[in-house]
């Protein structure tokens, strides 16, 4: 007859470990503290690195995100034509761009050289000159008002005015004040030098191109005919949200299919993420600290478990008398220290996440944490506990039952 081997079921091992660890809660917590701090430091460091690295630089600005501007490249020092445009933007640039999918509105805009001509709102030339001002003139295509999201009292000029080169103008708010134009229902005329134009609208506000507010805004066609405007200086485009990047690449080709590289397209910066080498250095430092703390924690667990083995010699002897093999004894102490480590890992992870969340909240960041981190931390803790418990467990298994029972 072969006798039955003695057994030590896993669930018994679990309950024995729980009982042993909860019997002295204060000691258990103090023992776990080093590992708790180590795991917390690791989790918080990695969590904060993750969080900081995922913050989008700046805030999302809808107006900026939908703005695209096209200007000609400037010639740099070739044949003394420094600063001159090397390519011309076509007059129908606005129409061409509006055909692109994703463009809401587009229009050209150019400063008009009026040779220092003074503007006035009264027909009589006043020798004292008190009613005459130098007001800049800007020529735009009708589409610009929409592209710039301008608000106009009265009306803006349309394609008809433009084609006919009608002498009409929209006064910017500031320009209207200076020229003392307060109403438009009587179609006031203003004089720019000796040229008369009819004011058909006043621009009360504009989201883009604020220089329009201080200018006399005239149709392209009029500026071309009367003020010798060669070509539009700039195209202003409003895109749909998210289309700016695409339009930015298409605009130059649409305007200058022969030589798109002659046009410079300004588009909103794409969202970037912070990732600097400085941060990586800081991370390495904190990770090293966390690792050191884990090492200290492991030594703490090893130390206390060893003391506990010595204290519980009598219990070990009793267990052997009750049928525990050396292996069972070792397994019990290993399991206890691993459970302690796992508990510390769990606590440390919670603490680390808490730190990450608090720091993020104080900086208005969105906390970002990789899922594997909190999930694996208890296992890291358990592994540390297991490692720390190896020597004490071996020591416990080497206990001589006869000696142990006599002492206890």
């Amino acid at each position, binding site marked *: 007859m072969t006798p039955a081997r*003695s057994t030590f079921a896993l669930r018994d091992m679990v309950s024995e470990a729980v009982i042993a660890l909860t019997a002295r809660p204060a000691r258990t917590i103090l023992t776990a503290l080093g590992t708790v701090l180590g795991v917390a430091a690791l989790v918080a460091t990695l969590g904060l690195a993750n969080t900081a690295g995922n913050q989008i630089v700046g805030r999302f600005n809808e107006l900026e995100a939908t703005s695209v501007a096209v200007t000609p490249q400037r010639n740099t020092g070739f044949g003394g034509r420094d600063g001159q445009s090397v390519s011309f933007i076509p007059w129908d640039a606005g129409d061409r761009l509006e055909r692109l999918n994703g463009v809401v509105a587009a229009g050209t805009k150019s400063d008009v050289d009026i040779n220092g001509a003074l503007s006035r709102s009264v027909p009589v030339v006043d020798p004292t000159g008190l009613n005459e001002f130098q007001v800049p003139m800007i020529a735009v295509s009708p589409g610009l008002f929409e592209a710039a999201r301008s608000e106009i009292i009265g009306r803006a000029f349309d394609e008809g005015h433009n084609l006919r080169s009608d002498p009409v103008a929209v006064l910017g708010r500031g320009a209207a004040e200076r020229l003392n134009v307060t109403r438009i229902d009587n179609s006031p005329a203003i004089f720019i030098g000796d040229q008369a134009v009819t004011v058909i609208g006043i621009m009360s506000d504009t989201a883009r191109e604020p220089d329009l507010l201080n200018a006399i805004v005239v149709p392209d066609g009029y500026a071309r005919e009367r003020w010798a405007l060669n070509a539009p200086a700039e195209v202003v485009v409003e895109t749909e949200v998210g289309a700016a990047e695409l339009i930015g690449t298409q605009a130059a080709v649409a305007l200058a299919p022969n030589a798109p590289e002659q046009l410079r397209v300004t588009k909103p910066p794409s969202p970037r993420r912070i990732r600097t080498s400085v941060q990586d250095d800081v991370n390495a430092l904190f990770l090293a600290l966390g690792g050191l703390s884990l090492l200290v924690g492991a030594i703490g667990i090893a130390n206390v478990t060893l003391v506990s083995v010595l204290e519980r010699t009598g219990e070990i002897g009793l267990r052997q008398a009750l049928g525990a093999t050396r292996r*069972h004894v070792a397994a019990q102490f290993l399991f206890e220290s691993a459970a302690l480590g796992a508990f510390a890992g769990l606590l440390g992870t919670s603490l680390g996440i808490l730190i990450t969340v608090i720091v993020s909240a104080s900086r208005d960041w969105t906390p970002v944490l990789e899922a594997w981190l909190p999930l694996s931390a208890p296992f890291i803790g358990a592994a540390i506990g297991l490692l720390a418990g190896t020597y004490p467990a071996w020591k416990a298994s080497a206990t001589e039952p*006869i000696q142990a029972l006599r002492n206890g």
Partner: protein
Amino acid sequence: MTAVVELEGVERTFDGTPPVEALKATNVVVNQGDYVAIVGPSGSGKSTLLHLLGLLDSPTAGTYRLDGVDTQGISEAEKAGLRATRIGFVFQSFHLLATRTTVENVALGELYVAGSKADRKARAVEALTRVGLGHRLDAYPTTLSGGERQRVAVARALAASPALLLADEPTGNLDSVTTASILDLFDELHQSGLTVMMITHDRNVAARADRQLNINDGVVTEEAMERA
């Protein structure tokens, strides 16, 4: 009558210069239901004999059959299995775990035997009732008297329904009144058919047993006793 313990030429010699012959060739047969006292002065080898009987130590020569199983050449796990199921230990210093209730302490007696927790608890309650402590199930050992603690220890030894109860100076830490009550308990267990072996140095205690083995300088002799 079946033999629970059969020792044939069992010897135990401890290494050293010179080697110590703690137990010289011993032949003892203990049958089921026997109540045996092992008496001897300290250093006589009675602890050595107890450890051999309890499978906590192995003989250097001879064969030991426990409940019909030859313990020679069986594995450590099988020896531990025999300790868990066939032997109940009672110690002089009780060896109760202070942080566990009496019923938990008694249930420990079956920890290394396969079985469910609920069954163990049920048998622990049964064993505690058997030793007269059915009313102190959830008490902690520190709140018990010496006699009560030893009863808890006896209950723990009984939990796995062993073939042999091995008691090492069970009354060594008890006063005379408590001693008497523990010995009464042993009498009861013996009368219910349990095999009991008890080590003691106290002749009065030994007198309660049916058989008395004297041990002196490692030599075991049986005292002729009048059967009651």
